[in-house]
């Protein structure tokens, strides 16, 4: 019963919100007869002081537990007992905090004190109550959570809030939060009136018990009051955090160096290390040149990543951004780096959707080819639905769509014609699934033709550069014995066994597109 209090969060109705109402609805006999407390702490004597208005049920304090009797007797100092007493004083109990949680916290505090033999040295009278600790933990947790939310939810100030959150995490003190309004404002927005209501009774109760609250708790209380004031708008923050503020907008870079190594950001970017757009423009040109001169891909990729990062932190989204992503995507494609390619492609999709100019047709065609490569039927379906009639008529997209349909219908003849005439860099993507499709086509041919076909036919139908390439491909897949030299040229022996051979190779590299 006691633990279910946690869910019983009953804020007073607006307009009636007096604490009296709340108490009225509290279960009449509170669950004070819980025995766990006593068991754990082995209080064997009646506490010397019982508040007049609160009579603890006898079992809670008087009956010695067998468990404790066996232990070496610990003499609990009066101060500890007073602390426990205070802890379960109805004035200090809060509907929000389950009793079990308080007990656990209390147990932890006393056990650890007892283990460290600090029972007598700790100032129990001024130690914050477990529920206060829980409350402050919770506040900190929501706080933390909210700053994280804020960052993820993205009011465009990710890095700033992150750094603030990091700072908050370090500071155990609750006193310095006036410098950061955003998390609280976010709290207000998110929970609306609820958050206010939840905390109000808590405040009131705290005021009631002001006499016996300790130094620490009154400090906490002061903070609550401060926060309350801020909620009411009667308290204007005067102190500004030195870190860039939401209002300050994105970082404006000042770094004049052209080349910079990529380094994953773990804190707010330093403007001194971020290159502004006019520098980046030069960087892009220089990088393109380096690339043409055959620079190492790892280096180029790293440079592009740092460029993309600089663009991101400065929130530059314009044609230049598109150019950077497009160039990087192309270079990644040429190097078969599908990971980076995909990152760029994802961003490009958004940039195009924002209406930015670029080679959107080229990249949409790549997307189609990519989905063919990964046999991603569902995404392909979605993409088809997104294409407009005008787009479907454009050469690169038309080509990609034809590739798709030729594969779906098993028309390898058409497929390899298309393969040899791929616009832009699509061939790099097609290269990645052409082996798969060649094997599928070979299976087809082997099963359908008898007794043999000329090797030349295979070369032409499957888009090989030369007969030698075709023969090499067949040999690579253990089909040496299928190639025969005859008077009228080189023949490729077909038939079911040959089909089975290529079927096995095909299955080894995955399911080809379009075949059921």
């Amino acid at each position, binding site marked *: 019963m006691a633990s*279910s209090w*946690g*869910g*019983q969060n*009953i804020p*007073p*109705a*607006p*307009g*009636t919100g007096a604490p009296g109402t709340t108490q009225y*609805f509290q*279960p009449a006999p509170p669950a004070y007869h819980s025995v766990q407390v006593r068991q754990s702490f082995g209080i064997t004597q009646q506490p010397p002081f019982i508040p007049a208005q609160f009579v603890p049920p006898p079992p809670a304090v008087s009956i010695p537990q067998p468990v404790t009797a066996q232990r070496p007797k610990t003499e609990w100092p009066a101060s500890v007992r007073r602390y426990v007493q205070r802890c379960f004083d109805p004035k200090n109990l809060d509907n929000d905090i389950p009793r079990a949680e308080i007990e656990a916290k209390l147990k932890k505090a006393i056990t650890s004190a007892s283990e460290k033999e600090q029972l007598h040295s700790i100032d129990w009278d001024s130690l914050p109550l477990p529920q206060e600790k829980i409350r402050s933990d919770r506040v900190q947790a929501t706080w933390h959570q909210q700053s994280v939310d804020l*960052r*993820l939810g*993205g*009011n*465009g100030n*990710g890095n700033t809030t992150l750094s603030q959150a990091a700072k908050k995490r370090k500071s155990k003190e609750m006193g310095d939060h006036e410098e950061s309004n955003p998390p609280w404002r976010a709290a207000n927005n998110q929970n*609306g009136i609820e958050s206010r209501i939840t905390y109000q009774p808590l405040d009131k109760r705290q005021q009631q018990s002001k006499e016996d609250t300790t130094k620490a708790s009154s400090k906490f209380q002061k903070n609550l009051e401060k926060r309350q004031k801020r909620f009411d708008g009667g308290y204007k923050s005067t102190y500004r955090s030195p870190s860039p503020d939401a209002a300050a907008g994105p970082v404006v870079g000042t770094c004049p160096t052209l080349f910079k190594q990529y380094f994953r950001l773990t804190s707010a970017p330093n403007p001194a290390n971020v290159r502004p757009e006019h520098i980046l423009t030069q960087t892009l040109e220089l990088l393109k040149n380096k690339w043409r001169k055959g620079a190492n891909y790892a280096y180029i990729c790293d440079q592009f990543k740092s460029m993309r990062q600089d663009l*991101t932190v400065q*929130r530059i*989204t314009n044609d230049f951004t598109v150019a950077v992503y497009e160039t990087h995507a192309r270079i990644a494609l040429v190097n078969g780096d599908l990971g980076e390619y995909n990152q760029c492609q*994802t*961003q490009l*999709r*958004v*940039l195009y*959707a*924002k209406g930015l100019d670029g080679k959107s047709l080229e990249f949409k065609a790549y997307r189609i080819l990519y989905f063919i490569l990964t046999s991603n*039927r*569902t995404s*392909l*379906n*979605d993409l*088809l*639905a997104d294409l407009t009639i005008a787009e479907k008529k454009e050469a690169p997209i038309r080509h990609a769509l034809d590739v798709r*349909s030729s594969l*779906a*219908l*098993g*028309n*390898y*003849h*058409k497929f390899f014609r298309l393969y040899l005439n791929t616009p832009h860099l699509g061939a790099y993507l097609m290269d990645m699934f052409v082996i798969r499709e060649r094997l599928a086509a070979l*299976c*087809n*041919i082997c*099963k*359908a*033709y*008898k007794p043999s*076909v*000329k090797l030349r*036919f295979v070369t*032409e*139908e499957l888009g090989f550069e030369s007969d030698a390439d075709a023969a090499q491909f067949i040999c690579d897949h253990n089909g040496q014995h299928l190639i025969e030299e005859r008077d009228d040229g080189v023949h490729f022996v077909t038939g079911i066994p040959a089909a089975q051979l290529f079927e096995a190779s095909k299955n080894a590299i995955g399911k080809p597109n379009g075949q*059921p």
Partner: protein
Amino acid sequence: MDSFFKVFSAAYGGGDGYALADTLSPIAPASQPDKLRRFVHSTNYASVQNDFKYRLLYDKASPLRLNVEEGKAWVEVYVSFWKACVEILQAEAAINDNQKPSWEKVYRAWKEVSDHLNRGYTAAGFENWTVPCLYVVGKYLRMFAIKADEVASSLEQTTIDFNEDLSLDDEQHANLEDAARQLNKVFQLCLSDRASLEESRKWGIYSIINLLFKTYFKLGKITLSKNILNALRAYRGDMPELDAFPLSHQVTFKYYVGVISFLDEKYEECETCLTEAWYMCHKDSLRNKELILTYLIPCHLLTTHTLPSQALLEPYPYLQTLFSPLVRCIKQGDLSGFDAALAAGEDEFVRRRIYLTLERGRDIALRNLLRKVFIAGGFEPAKTGEGSVRRSRIRLVEFAAAVSLGSKETMETDEVECLLANMIYKNLMKGYIAREAGMVVLNKKGAFPGTGI
């Protein structure tokens, strides 16, 4: 208020979950168009909490004796419900005044109802017969979210932020995505109930799953549905069998699972699920049957190479316009007609995600065409003592001519060969191509399996 409590206590006292869920319906029934308004006007912000508390917990005249905790939780549910109704009336009033209704506010308020209801299950021990409340609240949660998104997108707020990573769809469906998360919570709430089956909330699970599927489909995040199916699979042992659930839950669930496998090209699985859904579906719910057929027909085209009969399509004008032209062309083996019909219906096919599947129906059209060529080839000169045998050696050019029928350009023989090779490879046609001779040699018996020749 009075009439409301009468309904509530009757439903609660009688343990009738659906009647109880009705009290949480934010739509006035046709018989009482004023129900919502009267309910809202029966109290006000200042006293709503106490009104409900009094009625549910302290009214000595009331026949109900609710457990205190549970009663308080119901109070919270109904207070938030009342507040949501206020917002709904305001939104409706705004529409009547030709102003922008704030469905977003309605959605927020309704989410509170959902939150309080969830809390009732986790903390206040709502019993499992009340799960229909979850259905109703979930259903309207989804609807209000969609309405809120519609308003938001009409306001055209294009504030994409370039934070960590860009994402496209978020701002269009912000509320619906939020609703999906909320529904997912309800799903977990049902799934993770460890009570024994008789009193388990698991009995609510398929209804919630169906809502989730609907939402994910609307969001275009169908892959998320698979997470649900995986979670379901993980709990399989502790779950009542699907056929123990209400029929309506079963049909919807089977339908969605069928469509999900359809999209994954698992046509066999799709066929099983959709066929079951088809047979269980209420005979009068034409709309649902139409939806099932939209996917079952293309599926059958691939799995069994069968076409829908005219009689089957009769009651569904939409399906007739959708499929009839294609069906006719496939039957006649009219390739160019098929291509034209496919192109004509492309937008709708793609929107329904059946384009890629229907496209493969071309194989069947081609098979029928080739079969016609074979039949037109007639019989071998009869030999004595034998029955008539079809001419089984057919020149490639005959097929080439047939394939090019109706299209303006002649297809290269290599490509025709390729099409024939495919037919043979897919076992739609038995025989082989003798390339050197320019001949296709078909089996004397069963050249076109399953077609009687």
